[in-house]
């Protein structure tokens, strides 16, 4: 299976990104040990110069991770024709035990990466780079994830056996089966709806509150993360049903298909972007008392919060629109 061009591209990207991150982590260790902004030594000068290289490398790494996340899902979707029993990305991810961990790692790296970029942006605003140790410590935590992702992805592609009959969304996302996916599918739609709009309201309100009053940044970030998780559950539990207009089809991947008007992309892109922004404003907010960063935090964190709030808003509007405009009627069954 390795000779498929999309797979070669994914492996190539993951290998390059891992290499760049390893390079950066070597530098990170040096920074953590030797950084001293007040020193005029040659080493400090060299370190300061090198930060430019490293942040450029990392920006590119995280941007390519983002594209590779999209490509990974899209590729899984398009390979579903090559496996017995696979009808969408779920079946391909299920082909072996490495598929789901790879996807999860890619998502986690995406959020870590965007948070890191936000922190890096903020740090560059301060004339004395006050967060430099923090951000390189954070980087050292991201590197193992990237290495793990490279490994799991490679295993996923190497162990693809077209003769294995895989189980697809119909089996995995059904209320009668066992496992996390089944649990999520089995959540009562009214509970899921309540949770979705509940976390949505808290996130939007705390976001606006933070953006206007500059208080409660942590609350906003936490509720943003909760809203993200609940939104994914809600997509599996009831939003997808309305998009498919089918009371038992819970798959979160089939909505990416052209047959459903690419609804999935319209839902996931605002949701992921909003969560990333919320996390970004969350990592910025705690530094408002640093003298060299106060102005930058006061300017940029609320800006990110506004963006996050509008993207979350867009997601809720779209989700509600899909539910309202669907021909599926289940009110008599649920309530």
């Amino acid at each position, binding site marked *: 299976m390795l000779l498929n*061009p*999309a797979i070669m591209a994914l492996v190539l990207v993951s290998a390059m990104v891992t290499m*760049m991150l390893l390079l950066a982590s070597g530098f990170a260790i040096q920074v953590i040990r030797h950084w001293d902004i007040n020193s005029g030594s040659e080493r400090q000068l060299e370190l300061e110069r090198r930060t430019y290289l490293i942040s*450029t490398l990392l920006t590119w790494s995280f941007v390519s991770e983002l594209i590779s996340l999209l490509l990974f899902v899209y590729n899984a979707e398009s390979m579903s*024709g090559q496996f017995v029993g696979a009808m969408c990305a779920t079946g391909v991810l299920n082909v072996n035990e490495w598929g789901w961990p790879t996807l999860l790692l890619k998502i986690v790296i995406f959020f870590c990466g965007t948070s890191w970029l936000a922190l890096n942006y903020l740090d560059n605003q301060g004339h004395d780079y006050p967060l430099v140790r923090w951000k390189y410590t954070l980087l050292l935590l991201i590197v193992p994830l990237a290495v793990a992702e490279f490994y799991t992805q490679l295993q996923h592609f190497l162990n693809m056996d*077209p003769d294995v009959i895989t189980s697809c969304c119909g089996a995995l996302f059904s209320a009668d089966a066992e496992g996390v996916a089944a649990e999520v599918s089995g959540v009562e739609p009214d509970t899921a709806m309540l949770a979705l709009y509940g976390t949505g309201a808290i996130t939007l309100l705390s976001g606006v509150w933070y953006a206007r009053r500059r208080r409660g940044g942590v609350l906003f970030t936490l509720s943003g993360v909760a809203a993200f998780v609940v939104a994914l559950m809600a997509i599996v539990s009831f939003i997808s049903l309305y998009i498919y207009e089918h009371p038992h089809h819970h798959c979160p991947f089939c909505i990416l298909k052209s047959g459903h008007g690419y609804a999935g992309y319209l839902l996931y892109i605002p949701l992921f972007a909003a969560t990333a922004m919320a996390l970004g404003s969350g990592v910025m907010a705690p530094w408002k008392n640093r003298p060299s960063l106060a102005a930058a935090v006061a300017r940029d964190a609320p800006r990110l919060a506004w963006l996050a709030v509008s993207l979350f808003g867009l997601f809720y509007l779209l989700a509600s629109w899909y539910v309202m405009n669907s021909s599926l009627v289940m009110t008599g069954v649920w309530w």
Partner: protein
Amino acid sequence: MIDLIRKQRYLIDFTLSSLLRRKGKNLGLLLVYTLIVFMLASIMLFTHALRQEAGMVLQSAPEIILQRMVAGRHALVPADYLEKMGSLRGVTDKKGRLWGYFYDPTVKANYTMMVDEARGLTAMEVVIGAGIARAKGIGIGDYISFRAYDGDAFSFQVKEIINPVTELVSSDLVLMSERAYRATFGVPDGYFTDIVLKVRNPREVRKIAEKLSMRLPDTRPILREEILRTYDSIFSWRQGIVFVLLAGAILAFVIFAWDKASGLSAEEKREIGILKAVGWETADVLRMKFWEGAVISLSAFILGYLSAYAHVFYGSATLFEPVLKGWAVLYPEFQLTPFIDGLQVATLFFFTVFPYIVATIIPIWKASITDPDAVMR
């Protein structure tokens, strides 16, 4: 926000004029870059269109083909197998087919001979594919003769030439009546080449195939979905092989880009020195270089992709044809249906733009940290 956009606009403006000042060097890079994108994009567009075409052709194929096996070889199926398999729930239609191959020494090519009762051909008439008509130089009303199994020669009048739209599959096809077929090949009455079954519900296909191989143990069912799956992986695989072969070219390109980016001329170094002396920061120089890369990448990508598109869909992919689609005497002439897909574009991006970026980051950074006094002295 507006300020940010305005700043980037000025940077792009500056970058463009600085690129134009060194036309020769940048045009060379652009040319090589475009060529790489062109080659890879041609292959992707071509294999993808072929795969699409195969899928469309097979759309109307029967869901199950049943072949009888004798000692591991494909053998004729007795007509009573149709009764022996009994009625299978979910099968909407089943019938025996008669077909085979015929080698014509005059044009050194194989024809596919098939019985088509639906066309109502008499025993003296045939319908031929456009490839045969081209190779033998015959048209409607002309005669074509085949040497039968027992040495006799039979002549048939060409009643029709198959519509060139379907040439990909019908180029070498000869359609004839059942009587003519049996007389030419000596296949006795009561035997078929194979049996085809139509199944309405795709989810029942595997179960029906299982039942068939239980009731008729000496047969082998071939499923349409399996053929489709095989085509799918074969085309991806061929594309992958060509990509691996081109890996050397990509690597050469990466080295070339690295070299271009790191071999700054004295003049360019001076330019960066002056920029820094008048107040540009390292980050600004990096940004300018980023825009430089973006302008070159984008132009090369668009130019390469568009010319690949023209090459594949208007020029029949002349350069890669033999490797990717195979060859034959009666090769079909066909126009591929243009098809662009996001996955392809993203993959192509990762094979061309991504290596370029990775190769140029370090040289660009090296250039941007230059001390003004070091270069202007």
